């Protein structure tokens, strides 16, 4: 239990996707102009990461790793399909996002309207694929991968909401014209990254 809590805190704060690894930057920069849309995208990312990381764990460990196919026939036990993991992961993500979109549309139109365009956009958010790849690299087991997916998503959401709040306030400040918009957003993200670095000293 304590292990799971550690992974959650680590993935949400210490190893924050955006502010420690700078993953998922494209949508982070493009969608952080207002808090409202940032909350929508953040919620969608938590949702999708929380689902896709465990499902990709199942695919990785039941189909792709060496020996995983042994349950079909003993002669397949030596087959190592890990070189296919990129294709499998991205296909799972694309299919799941499509599926989630359809389910949400049918069951909860309000949530569907709130998430809007963000659901399909998430397929190409690097953070989702990175979640799956980090999960493989760190050799999590199944419960750990569930917690990791949720934690990483929540960390990403926190970062984009904080960024959007700062950018809304920035409208009233006097910035050199050439730095306005994108330029100052980069500097801000850098400063936030440095602020988050202070959490790295925590040992869990």
């Amino acid at each position, binding site marked *: 239990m304590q292990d799971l809590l550690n992974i959650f805190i680590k993935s949400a704060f210490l190893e924050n996707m955006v502010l420690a690894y700078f993953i998922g930057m494209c949508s982070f*920069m493009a969608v952080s102009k207002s808090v409202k849309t940032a909350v929508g995208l953040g919620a969608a990312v938590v949702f999708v990461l929380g689902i896709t990381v465990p499902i990709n764990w199942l695919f990785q460990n039941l189909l792709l790793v060496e020996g995983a196919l042994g349950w079909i026939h003993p002669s397949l036990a030596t087959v190592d399909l890990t*070189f296919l993991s990129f294709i499998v992961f991205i296909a799972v993500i694309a299919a799941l996002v499509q599926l989630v979109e359809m389910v949400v549309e049918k069951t909860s139109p309000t949530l569907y309207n709130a998430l809007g365009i963000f659901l399909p956009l998430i397929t190409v958010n690097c953070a989702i*694929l990175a979640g799956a790849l980090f999960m493989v690299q760190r050799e999590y087991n199944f419960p750990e991968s569930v917690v990791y997916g949720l934690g990483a998503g929540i960390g990403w959401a926190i970062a984009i909401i904080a960024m959007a709040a700062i950018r809304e306030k920035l409208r009233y400040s006097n910035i050199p014209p*050439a730095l306005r*918009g994108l330029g100052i957003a980069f500097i801000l*993200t850098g400063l936030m990254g440095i602020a988050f670095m202070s959490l790295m000293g925590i040992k869990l």
Partner: protein
Amino acid sequence: MSQATETTTAVQEQKKDAWFSPKNRKLITDPIGDNNPITIQILGLCSALAVTTQLKPAIIMAIGVTIVTAFANLIISAMRNTIPNRIRMIVQLVVIAALVVIVDQLLRAFVYDVSKKLSVFIGLIITNCIVMGRLEAFAMANKPWPSFLDGIGNGLGYGAILVIIALLRESLGSGTILGYQIIPQAFYTAGYVNNGLMVTPAASMFIIAIIIWIQRSRNPKLVDIS
């Protein structure tokens, strides 16, 4: 009659200079300058920040992205009329993923230590917005050859920024370039210290911001009004 010959010569001319006509050359040079994928289109940031602590991985990453973008553009552009609109995302992703797998396997075979250092970022070329963005914005609406050039151009534009960032970060952060020491030992004995900030990922944010600042003050047309 004369009109017919005129059109045929026009067609011939178009065929003759089709490979490297000024328009096609512009496809390569534009993304390096005023239409840069990183500083103007905000595409492909994720990997740009993480692999630039040293020059060598940055160069290899740039080559990888250029190859994947160019060939993905070429393949998707060749298939653009046969892909059903609703599933085009999945088709595009599968093509990109297949190319990335090839690049990844090549890197593992020939430069294993670099491929270990790049770790998940090679895989992340799949979701690198440059590839996807150019497929959507260019390859779906253009012929294979211009699409191929557009891919090369955007890969080079991305690579140029990557190399600038990596040069600054490696020389100021570790005092080396491509692993060779460039700051003489005498400086260190005299009290010079490497800039620790440059090794952190945050430094690349600041460097990109400075590049954007310089680029936009030289060309005020690019300034963001919002």
